[in-house]
Each structure stands twice: as structure tokens, then as C-alpha cells.
């Protein structure tokens, strides 16, 4: 297991910059998620770390030593692709043993390692099956076993759960996370699913348009996004309220709120739906329920007042109907303020 450092890495294809001066570190045994919308250059970055793509500029260090000139097969960074890419002409056993065979490990040791790996991923008894005989989840496990069999210095997972159906995704996510913790493998996971990133990562690096916008723990990234872009990408639909800060007070159509840290100027407040409270109404509040989305465990409301709409997430003990008058309060201490220029 190694410590990974990516330093100022850039890559352009046909004059278009895909990766733009990216730097981050992954600690030993840590799981770092590269989170970003599709087309942000996540997979390219993973391939650069694996050695499949050469960066135009920058450097990559494993345990403090540059691996830029180490060829793919000697780098020890094993990439698990989104669609697993098991070798179709080999059995499960041969697939898992492939890396060891390439490293010249003798047959009896290979066989032992394969059995160990199969036990690890709960696939005992499948050694003589071919990939086409396996289900999606099983393929994923074999791909994982094949990657782990070579004892990689870093494990690179490219959207590992996106090809699974939702229920299986959940269990494979837990399984992978558990395995990663137990074996303390330095792991970089690429995903566009912020929920997944929040649930599995030790730390998250948010990659948008080819550059890292923020690196932090899931809590930090969720509660204290570094920019409006990051805030927009993380979490459900949110409320955006424009206003102005003057003398430590943020004034917006919702009212005046204290904003002691902010410098005077124009700001956008991002308010998550769960921080908007809704309660049985008073005539004078002026808020009416515009739309209701029942989601089982919780309810999404859209409330309206004088042309101003707010999204609100509430528990399911009271269900309000459209047109009902309600009281709305905003927990402004949880709102995020970002300086913006209005057009």
C-alpha cells in the first residue's frame, strides 16, 4: 500500500484541456473519491495514475518516488473498469490468477492465492465458471479479486457500481468499502454519484471541468462547499436566494439574516431543502403549498409566496396539501453564502 501524490497534472486532447493542473494526495490505506459530473476528466485522471495515459505536464509520486517513467505493468496501480473487463476466454480461476501468472508466481502458489481471493469475495466454488456464466455482481467481485490478487500499491475503481441495479449497488458498495478497510488498500474511486461518494469515502476530491475544486471529508464537502459550483453539484436540488450583504447583515427577499464573516457585496445564499421548516400555517405568513412530492420516508414540498418559490424537505408525520397555508422558517445558520456577480 502506498501514499499517492498527484502534482500539477495536465492533459489535453486535440488542443482541448481535459485535465488542468490537478494536484491532490491520497494517504496510505485511505479511500479517496474523485467526484465530478461526466466529462470532467475523472477517468482520464485515473488512467494517468495507472500509467495508461501520459500526462502533458506534472508528476505522480507513489511513496515519494516519481512513477512517471515506470511502465504500466510495473507501476502496481490496478484499474478496475466500469464494465469489469474479465477475460472472456478464461475461467474465473484463470482470470484471478492472471496477474500472478504474469509476475511469474509458481502454479501452486497461484492456486492458493486464487482460493484465498475467492473466499475473500464470497465466490467459493466458482473457479471453473466462465465470465459469461456470472451475474453482474459476481463479475464485479471477480474483477475485484483479480485486482486484489496482485497486491496492488493502489487500487483504482472507475465507476465500479454504475452497471449494477440499485439494490445490488447498495450491497456491493458496502462490500467493497468493508474489504477496502479490512485490507487497508489505498484506493481512488471515480464516481459521478455524490451520494455514493459521501457514503464510501474517507475524503472526496471534487473535479469539475478538469480541475479540483475542493478536497475534504464528506462532511466538509457537503456542509462547507468551497464554491457555488461544488454546492450545486453536491446534494439534491437546492434553493438559491440572491441578496446583498451590508455591515454583516444579509438582506434578501426572505428577510435579513446575520452574516458576520461576509464582506459587503452581492451574494447567493444556497439553502438545502432540509433546512427549510414547514409547519401548519398562520393566515398572515403568506406561504402556500404549491406542489407536493411524496417520497415515502420524507416529503418534498414546493412552497410559494409572492412569486418566490422554496423547496422544502419535511418528515412524513403531517402531510400538507397543495393550496394549504403554511408557516415557513429558514434555518439560515446552515445556509451557504457565495459571492456572486449579477448579470
Amino acid at each position, binding site marked *: 500500500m502506498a501514499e499517492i501524490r498527484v502534482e500539477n497534472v495536465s492533459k489535453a486532447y486535440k488542443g482541448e484541456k481535459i485535465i488542468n493542473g490537478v494536484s491532490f494526495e491520497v494517504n496510505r490505506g485511505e479511500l479517496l473519491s474523485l467526484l465530478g459530473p461526466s466529462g470532467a476528466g475523472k477517468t482520464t485522471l485515473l488512467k494517468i495514475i495507472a500509467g*495508461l495515459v501520459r500526462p502533458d505536464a506534472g508528476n505522480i509520486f507513489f511513496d515519494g518516488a516519481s512513477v512517471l517513467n515506470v511502465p*504500466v505493468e510495473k507501476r502496481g*496501480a490496478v*484499474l478496475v473498469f466500469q464494465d469489469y473487463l474479465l*477475460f472472456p*476466454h478464461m475461467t474465473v480461476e484463470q482470470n484471478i490468477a492472471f496477474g500472478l501468472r*504474469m509476475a511469474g508466481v509458481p502454479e501452486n502458489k497461484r492456486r492458493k492465492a486464487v482460493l484465498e481471493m475467492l473466499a475473500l469475495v464470497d465466490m467459493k466454488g466458482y473457479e471453473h465458471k466462465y465470465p459469461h456464466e456470472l451475474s453482474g455482481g459476481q463479475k464485479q467481485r471477480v474483477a475485484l479479486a483479480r485486482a486484489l490478487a*496482485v497486491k496492488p500499491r493502489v487500487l*483504482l475503481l472507475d465507476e465500479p457500481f454504475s452497471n449494477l441495479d440499485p439494490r445490488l449497488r447498495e450491497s456491493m458498495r458496502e462490500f467493497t468499502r468493508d474489504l477496502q478497510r479490512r485490507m487497508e488498500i489505498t484506493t481512488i474511486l471515480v464516481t459521478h454519484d455524490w451520494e455514493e461518494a459521501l457514503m464510501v469515502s474517507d475524503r472526496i476530491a471534487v473535479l469539475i471541468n478538469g480541475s479540483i475544486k475542493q478536497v475534504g471529508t464528506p462532511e466538509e464537502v457537503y456542509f462547507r462547499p468551497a464554491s457555488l459550483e461544488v454546492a450545486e453539484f453536491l446534494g439534491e436540488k437546492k434553493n438559491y436566494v440572491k441578496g446583498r450583504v451590508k455591515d454583516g447583515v444579509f438582506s434578501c427577499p426572505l428577510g435579513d439574516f446575520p452574516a458576520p464573516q461576509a464582506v459587503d457585496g452581492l451574494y447567493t445564499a444556497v439553502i438545502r431543502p432540509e433546512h427549510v421548516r414547514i409547519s401548519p400555517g398562520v393566515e398572515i405568513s403568506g406561504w402556500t403549498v404549491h406542489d407536493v412530492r411524496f417520497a415515502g420516508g420524507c416529503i418534498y414540498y414546493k412552497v410559494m409566496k409572492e412569486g418566490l418559490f422554496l423547496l422544502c424537505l419535511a418528515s412524513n408525520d403531517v402531510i400538507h396539501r397543495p393550496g394549504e397555508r403554511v408557516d415557513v422558517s429558514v434555518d439560515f445558520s446552515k445556509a451557504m453564502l457565495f459571492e456572486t456577480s449579477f448579470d
Partner: protein
Amino acid sequence: MHRRFVNLVLYVAIGGIMFPMAVLLVWAFAREWPWPHLFPTAFTARGWLYLLSPSTGTLPVLLYSLLLSSVVTFLTLVLSLPAARALAFYEFRGKRAIEVFVLSPMVIPTTAIAMGIHVNFIRLGLADTLWGVVLVHLLPCLPYGIRILTGVFSALGDRIEQQARVLGACRLKTYLYVTLPLISPGLVTAGIMVFIVSFSQYFLTFLIGGGRVVTFSMLLFPFIQGGDRHLSAVFSLAFIGTVLLWVFALEALVRRWVRKGQYFYL
């Protein structure tokens, strides 16, 4: 109704292919088959005896031809593999031009440039030699090899190779243990196609071989031209049989090799 129509088309198509074969088969044993008789009036095995008899030297020519076309097929595949892989996986300047260039022997009749090649081969001392003929056969064969294999490589994609690389396989091992076994069905197809193209060459062999390199199609040609239907039929069947034999042999060889490759794994 629709089903019946499809069946009809199918039967017509099969009949269209089988009928000439059946006629060939009958002619291979017919001594006389005058109009308007539905079946031959006299039978013979003259052609078969001629084909198999050592004194006519036909079988050695057939074997020589088989060998020559096998060498051509092998060389074509060896040359096509890297070219097809590059065309399928890499983007580079002038790729489109190279694709057109590679396919040009399919479009430009080889007869048109055979003269120029002949003159140069004489200068190089390649005319009237086996290697000269092998070399000139590559010309009509390469487009088929490269074209078929390019399709196979693009269908495979380069990511499975990348997967092998990250697992610690160097380029050569990746090629031997992953790429080649996976493209082997395409390799068989290309091998068959190329073999048939080479085996059927008449004009190029004739010109460059200068009559010294004698292939089976060169023996077959005069019989067809001369109107000896019985002998032509026998030789044609031998021709078809050789190709079929090659197809089965190649298929078996590649399958065995792939299985052996797997066996090596553990």
C-alpha cells in the same frame, strides 16, 4: 404468408448455390452427357485417375500450391495484424489516406500494375522465383487481411488490453495471452479469405512465375478453357476440396492453440 415467402427465397438461394455444385459433381464422373439427356449416358473415372496418377505430376502441384498459399496466408496475417491494430486503435495524421492506400489493391486491378511489378522483379531477380510469386500474391491478399482484422480489432476495443497491462502484463504477454486468443475467430476468417484469394490467383502467378512456378489454378485453367468438362469438373472439385480442407485445418489448429494457451494459465 410472410414466412412462406422467406422460405421460398431461402430455397432459391440454396438451390442457386447447390445446383452448379451438383452439376459439377455429376460431370466429375460423366464421360458423355449429350443434349437432351437428363443424366449422363456413360460414366468414367478418367479424371480422378489423371489427378491421382504420379505420372501426370498433378498432386505435387496441388501440394506445392497449398504450401505456397499457406506461406502467403501466414505472411499476410503477420503483416496485417500490426497494421490492423494500429488502424483500429490509434488516431494519427494521415490515417484516412493510409486506409484508402491499403485498400487500393481491391479497387485498382492488379493486372494494370502487374507489368510494372514484373519489370522491377526482373531487375531484382525476383521474377520466375517462388518468393517473387509469394511477394506478388501479398498484393491482392493484404487488403482482405487488414480490412477483416481492422474490424475485429475495433470490435474488441483496446480496453481489454489496458486491463491486462495494469494487471502486470507487458506488451508482448498481453498480445499473446489476451489479444491473440480473443481475436482468433477473426484470424481464422481472415486466414480463409486470404488463402482463397491466393489459391485462386492465376494471372499474377503466371506473369511473375514465368511458367516456372506452377500452381493448381494454372493447371485448372487450360482444362476449363479447352472444354474438357469432365477433367475441369474433377479439378474444380479438387480445388474446392483443398480450400475446405484448409478451412477445417486452420479452424482446428487455432482452436487447439487457444485451448493450449488457456491450459498454460494454471
